[in-house]
């Protein structure tokens, strides 16, 4: 077997090796080339003392199985000690927080806004209007209609609004109706979340306690 393409690049650094994996080609090609390079072409540098290895996957979307497959292949060489693995899956989560889609406008009576994922809505949701999201619903405006967060069963989802005066709130399978004495509250931005299966309302400042996955800003 001869390999002409260069999907797997092996770079030497001061204290080890970097394996750079191309993120455009087929996964099977990648694996074959890695095996080939380990078995045949690069034997000289891959035998001998223990070498630290950094693995960089680039922007490839890969499953856990594919990832372990690559790592297992590397581990077969006894002298390769994997020090770090860079995958795109873990990168945006840690640095940029959850992905959120921004929309503006107005959801009027009888209109339904559906979205897969998290939604930041700039505008009002009027009585009789609905927002349905599989993720979080965050409304910069008045929520007077119905909002359904975590529509496909995510109980961790939250609903937040600048003015939270909904007809009804739904998170995952839980449906809640605001009590009648809600009418004359002070107006501060609030959010709804599930705690042991019941709907709770709290000031937006406390959203971090409920959702540790949000990045928390800590000033100096």
């Amino acid at each position: 077997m001869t390999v002409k393409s260069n999907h797997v690049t092996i770079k030497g650094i001061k204290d080890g090796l970097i394996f750079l994996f191309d993120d455009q080609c087929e996964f099977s090609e990648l694996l074959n080339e890695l095996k080939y390079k380990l078995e045949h072409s690069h034997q000289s540098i891959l035998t001998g003392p223990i070498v630290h290895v950094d693995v960089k996957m680039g922007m490839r979307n890969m499953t856990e199985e594919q990832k372990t497959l690559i790592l297992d292949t590397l581990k077969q060489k006894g002298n390769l000690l994997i020090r770090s693995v860079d995958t795109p899956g873990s990168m945006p989560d840690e640095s940029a927080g959850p992905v959120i889609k921004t929309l503006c406008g107005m959801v009027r009576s009888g209109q339904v806004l559906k979205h897969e994922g998290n939604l930041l809505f700039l505008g009002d949701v009027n009585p009789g209007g609905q927002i349905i999201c599989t993720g979080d619903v965050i409304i910069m405006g008045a929520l007077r209609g119905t909002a359904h967060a975590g529509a496909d069963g995510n109980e961790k989802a939250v609903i937040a609004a600048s003015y939270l005066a909904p007809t009804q709130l739904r998170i995952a399978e839980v449906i809640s109706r605001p009590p009648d004495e809600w009418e004359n509250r002070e107006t501060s931005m609030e959010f709804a979340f599930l705690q042991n299966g019941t709907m709770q309302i709290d000031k937006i400042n406390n959203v971090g306690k409920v959702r540790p996955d949000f990045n928390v800003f800590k000033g100096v």
Partner: protein
Amino acid sequence: MGEAIVVTSGKGGVGKTTTSANIGTALALLGKKVCLVDTDIGLRNLDVVMGLENRIIYDLVDVAEGRCRLNQALVKDKRFDELYMLPAAQTKDKNSVTPEQVRDIVLELKKEYEYVIIDCPAGIEQGFKNAIAGADRAIVVTTPEHAAVRDADRVIGLLEGSQVEAPKLIVNRIRPNMVKSGDMLDIEDIIQVLNIDLIGIVPDDEHVIKAANSGEPTVMNPDSSAAIAYRNIARRILGDSVPLMPLTQKKGAFTKFKKFFGMGG
């Protein structure tokens, strides 16, 4: 080429027909050439409010189906030479015309008249679709009740998805003293929810009922506060900037009047 304005609300009984009749008459009063079109087929009322019921020969469905020419179906108003009405059929239903047919009729009328006021039926079905088909602008009528505001919101949503330009709002049947005491929805609250421009507020006025029953639009009666409101709306349609009628001051004048009588007695 004239302009077609549809008067709609979603909910029934909020005063679409009264508003159409009065705005149309007020525009005629201001010297405009106006045609009123009743699209409430099967439940026509505009002719009754205008006092023209007994002059109807042909109707909208007859025109749509080619049984008569458009001019033959138009009924001339008793009071104004430049005010006409195209009545709806009473014996058919909403499905007997298509939006395309209504649009063609309205287009034809726009060539002849400066303003075509279309009275829309309640609901959001076929009748509503017919009514808005030929319209350039829309006026949404609501009353200070939650149900009416909810329906107005629905209709505004549908209008925003159509060819009609941004609708304007009329809040009808305001009772100033009830608003003041907090028993009636505030106009500010209504506008905040609906988020469209207000073109007028019409106070609840007994003259309106009396006028509708006698087939004489209220707007002809200068003693009625609703008449002033409708005249102001007509002027705003023409592009004049007329300040909103101060509701509280009106009440103030009334109390002064009562005081005067109290002192006299």
